[in-house]
């Protein structure tokens, strides 16, 4: 987007001008990108000679040169064929990219499906974490409705994406989340108390009460702190992956984002950088159909995110996001490719945001209740995976009741503790802006403390001053 004007009269500028001119000579100038006229078009053009039987070699070559029909352009990136027909690429293929799936709607493995084996232990943890995430969403949502926390955002409908993708990674893999992936953190061992501390912004919140609820982060668990802007984390994952590569680490990064996020410039920048820099990063797109109230047909006209991965030269796959085994298998394979081949991989999971965008949203204003109900019941990823786990004899109704009940109790306890814990002290308002508090902030803290002394009632009583 930056236009570099190179008509400047110093030596350095002139050098640049010649380079710029070289760059431009490689670029198409006509919208049709026409084959150049026959004859010498610089060293880039190398006619290919096909000698037909029974024809004089010289005559045939002349004919080819005149028609320009089967010449090959040796162009940066590889050879390009010239053709006489004017053909535009269609905006989309006739058929949409198909979607990898392992479990059918009834939780049975589809015959012939190939998937990564999941041990009993891992499968049970996957399923129980999906349930924990559901319970957590229900209770925190209620807590917000009761005014106990200021905001919340559920992952309903995307439990398989959250937990199964996390299960396919190792703890050394580094996560750059959007905000609808708390299940990844849960899988890694973030406790319900830690979730509650963040949502209540108390003194035990690692973020020191500075961000809204659901902006979790943990350096211990290699999970970068959530920030609200959409897609800004995607290029970070590429830079971090580049670091893993140059350090020779047996690890990759993964970054999550929604269908809406793929419209942001950062998405495109990141994919292009990752392809060019050959960075071991997994781009995980949760295509859940809705960016707040904007449906995907008003978001983009490409066939989702998967074709855009390919357009940037990235191995890409579309997967059923409500099929835990498919998500697990795809991310497992993507990780292998990323780490061992040092390349980016894009995974587009088709799913549905069953909940509202957040507690500030009422999605029935812009989508039908029937649609929501359909995805909530018929396509529910949790019950589908439960059927498979139960089918293996690894789970039961009794285990279900016990797990839901104990999780509920543990979370209610965590909320009580978090609610009662002190808020972070006032001094933390001024720390961490820089590594050390600079003079202007020391001065402002001093001034604020004097104001507080005079007007104590203007300020919340639960923040220790």
């Amino acid at each position, binding site marked *: *987007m930056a236009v*570099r004007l190179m008509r*400047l009269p110093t030596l350095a500028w002139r050098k640049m001008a010649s380079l710029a001119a070289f760059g431009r000579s490689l670029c198409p100038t006509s919208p049709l990108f026409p084959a150049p006229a026959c004859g010498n078009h610089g060293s880039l053009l190398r006619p290919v000679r096909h000698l037909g039987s029974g024809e004089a070699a010289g005559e045939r070559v002349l004919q080819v040169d005149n028609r320009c029909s089967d010449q090959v352009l040796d162009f940066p990136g590889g050879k390009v064929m010239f053709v006489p027909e004017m053909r535009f690429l269609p905006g989309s293929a006739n058929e949409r990219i198909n979607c990898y799936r392992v479990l059918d709607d009834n939780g049975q493995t589809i015959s012939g499906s190939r998937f990564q084996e999941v041990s009993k232990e891992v499968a049970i943890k996957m399923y129980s974490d999906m349930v924990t995430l559901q319970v957590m969403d229900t209770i925190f949502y209620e807590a917000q409705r009761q005014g106990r926390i200021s905001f919340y955002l559920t992952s309903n409908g995307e439990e398989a994406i959250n937990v199964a993708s996390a299960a396919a990674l190792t703890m050394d893999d580094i996560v750059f989340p959007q905000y609808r992936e708390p299940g990844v953190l849960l899988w890694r061992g973030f406790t319900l108390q830690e979730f509650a501390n963040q949502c209540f912004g108390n003194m035990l919140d690692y973020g020191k009460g*500075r961000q809204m609820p659901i902006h979790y982060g943990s350096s211990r668990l290699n999970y970068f702190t959530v920030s609200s802007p959409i897609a800004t984390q995607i*290029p970070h994952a590429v830079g*971090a992956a580049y*670091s893993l590569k140059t350090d020779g680490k047996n690890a990759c990064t993964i970054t999550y984002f929604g269908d809406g996020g793929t419209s942001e410039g950062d998405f495109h920048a990141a994919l292009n*950088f990752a392809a060019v820099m050959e960075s071991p990063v997994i781009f995980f797109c949760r295509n859940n159909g809705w960016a707040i109230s904007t449906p995907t047909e008003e978001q983009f006209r490409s066939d989702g995110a998967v074709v855009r991965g390919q357009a940037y030269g990235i191995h890409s796959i579309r997967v059923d996001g409500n099929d835990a085994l498919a998500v697990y298998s795809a991310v497992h394979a993507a990780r292998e490719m990323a780490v061992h081949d040092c390349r980016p991989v894009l995974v587009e999971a088709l799913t549905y945001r069953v909940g509202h965008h957040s507690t500030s949203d009422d999605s029935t204003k812009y989508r039908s209740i029937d649609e929501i109900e359909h995805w909530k019941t018929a396509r529910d990823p949790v019950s589908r995976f439960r059927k498979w786990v139960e089918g293996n004899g690894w789970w039961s109704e009794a285990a279900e009741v016990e797990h839901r009940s104990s999780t509920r109790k543990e979370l209610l306890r965590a909320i009580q503790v978090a609610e009662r814990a002190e808020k972070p002290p006032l001094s933390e308002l001024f720390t961490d802006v820089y*590594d050390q508090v600079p003079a202007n902030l020391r001065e402002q803290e001093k001034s604020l403390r004097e104001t507080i002394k005079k007007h104590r009632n203007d300020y919340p009583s639960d923040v220790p001053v």
Partner: protein
Amino acid sequence: MATAMALRLFGRRTSIAARGFSSSCETEKAAKDGKPINLFSAINQALHIALDTDPRAYVFGEDVRFGGVFRCTTGLADRFGRSRVFNTPLCEQGIVGFAIGLAAMGNRAIAEIQFADYIYPAFDQIVNEAAKFRYRSGNEFNCGGLTIRTPYGAVGHGGHYHSQSPESFFCHVPGLKVVIPRSPQQAKGLLLSCIRDPNPSIFFEPKWLYRLAVEEVPEHDYMLPLSEAEVIRQGSDITLVGWGAQLSVLEQACVEAAKEGISCELIDLRTLIPWDKETVEASVRKTGKLLISHEAPVTGGFGAEISASIAESCFLRLEAPVARICGLDTPFPLVYEQFYMPTKNKILDAIKATVNY
């Protein structure tokens, strides 16, 4: 005070190109073992040292591998390899986003934005991501190893998009450090400080001085302190504050004013945020008058912040309104550049008007 700076003139209008400097005691001491080099070579030296002294340092940006359009990265890729010194796609938000991720892994990510005029696509990454990375995570994470280098300012023929001075946008962002050097010696020492500082910083390089400014620069590894202004000329009648390429214009105005018996104290702010208010205040308490000069448009420029702060803290000592001689509130114009600029005589007139207020 001896001028350790030799001038090499280039460009069409020597009246604009003639820029002189005074070296401070601090840099004179440092210069003893130095050779005369220009500003881009000083930057280049700093980058060599940064890469040499820290295996986790990386240099990248558009056209960086062959040496960069201003030659600042010459020889780095050959010496340190293409995995540490590399070209990026032409995408400023990508460069800064990538750099944040790299820095967040404990590296020194030294990113080049080819012209400060093109930094705006990266604004969100700088403002919402880099600047808040440590704060929003409660220090769980930081990207303090990030340094963004970018050439700024007038160059005599750059028009709208090769001349801007966007520093004040970034001075409104807690969490960043904004640093602008005035000379080759300063550039080397301040850049190394930015690179090694544990906070994200933006280092604006005065592109007019890349070739024009030549100064003795020590070859060894040295750093100059951030957030410390430098009094580069002592005076008693009025305090002049500026940064970057504008310092030489202010210096010329000081020399002219001296001929008329006005003693100017000249301060190079060097770091714009967090800025050294104490040094400016101490000077204004002495002189009772203040003039600030920068190339960026006057409205909302960083001069406004300095002016307001000094008015607050030195109100009773000020003997005249604070003067601001800055760029006009227009886009940076090509053929009108000389009219737009805060030139020597505009400054000289303001010095006289302020002193005689």
